[in-house]
């Protein structure tokens, strides 16, 4: 009997691990920044370089930091969803225009619509680097105390918005 059970158990365990591996995107690196305070910075607004933005300004509210760029294709996919989210007025979205020309960023928002409460320009990508950005788009959920609670690598979709981001935002807002 052992003769059959042992290989079967080994096979089943291996199958489970392989199956879990199938569903995972190896490009998605778990961010060590989740659970840590959002790195501080001071950046000019995209539309008015005179005005500056710092994460400190959002203290006391839950907010989303959405990293995007005019040259990024997947950002165009998630853009309608962000527009819809901003119309619902659930949570402020701050856009970080990553490694982009200011005029290109402004033109994109003029053409497609502007879902952002604030848009900040990270022309040289230094702030993006501090936030561990290595692909655009990326979206961070930051809580009232300024702690990063979640990082989404890739585009916002109907599914991850409904299943992950919005429930988390609601939970953090209730705190």
């Amino acid at each position, binding site marked *: 009997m052992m003769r059959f059970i042992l290989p079967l158990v080994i096979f089943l365990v291996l199958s489970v691990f392989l199956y879990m591996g199938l569903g995972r995107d*190896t490009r998605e*690196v778990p961010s*060590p920044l989740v659970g840590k305070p959002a790195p501080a910075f001071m950046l000019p607004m995209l539309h008015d370089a005179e005005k500056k933005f710092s994460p400190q300004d959002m203290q006391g509210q839950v907010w989303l930091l959405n990293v995007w760029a005019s040259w990024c294709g997947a950002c165009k996919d998630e853009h309608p969803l962000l527009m819809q989210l901003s119309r619902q007025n659930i949570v402020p979205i701050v856009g970080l225009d990553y*490694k982009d020309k200011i005029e290109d960023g402004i033109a994109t928002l003029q053409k497609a619509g502007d879902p952002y409460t604030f848009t900040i320009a990270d022309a040289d*990508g230094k702030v993006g*680097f501090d936030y561990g950005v*290595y692909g655009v788009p990326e979206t961070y959920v930051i809580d009232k105390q300024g702690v990063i609670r979640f990082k989404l690598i890739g585009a916002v979709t109907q599914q991850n918005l409904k299943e992950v981001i919005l429930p988390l935002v609601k939970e953090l807002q209730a705190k």
Partner: protein
Amino acid sequence: MKYLLMVLLCLLPTFAIAGEAVDIADDPVMESRMIKLAEKVRCLVCQSEPVSTSHADWSNDVRQIMREKMKAGATDQEILDMLVERFGKSVLFDPPVDKETMPLWAAPFVLLLMGAVLLYYQLRKRTGLIKEASLSIQDEQRVAELMNEPSTAQADLTNSSKDSQA
């Protein structure tokens, strides 16, 4: 004179190549130190390639930041720590041994040990299974005959070899 000119003309392309190599950093010593360090860092956009050889935009940024940090006097370890802080341990090709990565490092040795233990018990079980084959009476007599008459056996052998030669 014509030949000399031709030889010189042939040399022209080599000058062109020399002109193409752009000096990236003003300090070649630091540049080589940076490349050495960048070999240890995984390019997150290209996964299996180190930052030192990758042409990805992100790798360019990382190399630039390494140069800046080195200029500011940061040690290699400080730069690696900074990268791990932002991108996690998987940016390092050789992740450190700690609580989180311990199972990965230990697993091969644990499996090896398990295999050795299993093998030991299997072999012990086998020695119990081996029984000495008992010989029948006829066989025993034949053995005794063969053992007691080496001369005849020898004779047989020489005979047969002669036969084969004939």
